[in-house]
């Protein structure tokens, strides 16, 4: 999986591409989010549009990122989960945990000033 980071206002958007799976994508995700948290970034938006699928390890890492951010007073939200990824968030009821947006500007605005 590829991950690149950009910022809009004070929101850090992580554009993910590929699959979040055991031993590979999950590690990339963990490291990117930990880097951001260590730099003091608190508003993190994971762009899932180009993530084709996740396995249980990938989903677990998503939850771990959410919790790690929360411990530091931050938030992780999701942008545009695609077909299979959307289904997985529904199936696991994580759609009720993560704030999820379809549009980037709305997602960014939701973090507040």
């Amino acid at each position, binding site marked *: 999986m590829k991950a690149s980071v950009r910022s809009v206002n004070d929101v850090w958007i992580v554009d993910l591409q590929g699959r979040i799976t055991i031993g590979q994508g999950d590690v990339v995700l963990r490291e990117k989010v930990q880097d951001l948290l260590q730099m003091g970034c608190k508003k993190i938006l994971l762009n899932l549009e180009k993530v084709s699928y996740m396995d249980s390890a990938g989903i*677990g890492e998503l*939850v771990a990122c959410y919790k790690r951010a929360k411990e530091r007073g931050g938030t992780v939200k999701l942008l545009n989960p695609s077909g299979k990824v959307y289904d997985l968030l529904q199936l696991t009821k994580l759609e009720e945990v993560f704030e999820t947006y379809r549009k980037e500007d709305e997602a960014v605005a939701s973090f507040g000033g």
Partner: protein
Amino acid sequence: MTEATIELVIPSEVRYVDLVHGIAQCAAQTLGFEEDAALDLALAAREATINAIVHGHRRDPARKVQVRLRAAPGNGIRIEVCDEGPGFDPERAPDPRARENRLRDSGRGLLLMRAFVDEVRFERRREGGMRVVLLKKMPGRAAARKTEEKE
């Protein structure tokens, strides 16, 4: 019986999970499954394989996970994932969708397997260890089209 079998034997290392996933997906597609159904089967096989490696064998590369796939073109596919670990009782696994479990880092593998194939069976092997059996039917449309439309 004019049916094909594929048997994979892998060391208990997670880097081999992609191989199982790939073989299952490829076999399913070659045998006539639509792309999405083939991915579902592969994702279920992936979860069963991760569990065999991680829980069954504690990632000990010397211990081998066996994955057996049986299929005939146009019919369903049956995948067995076998380990030599301590085994477990799937009834005792907590529901990861329950409010109090939603923030756990793990515990979603069985849920995914059950969502992605038509039937999942957990059996204790007589020789020790678990056998997880995954069954996926050829989805209706695919079954009807399978022969004609092959390019």
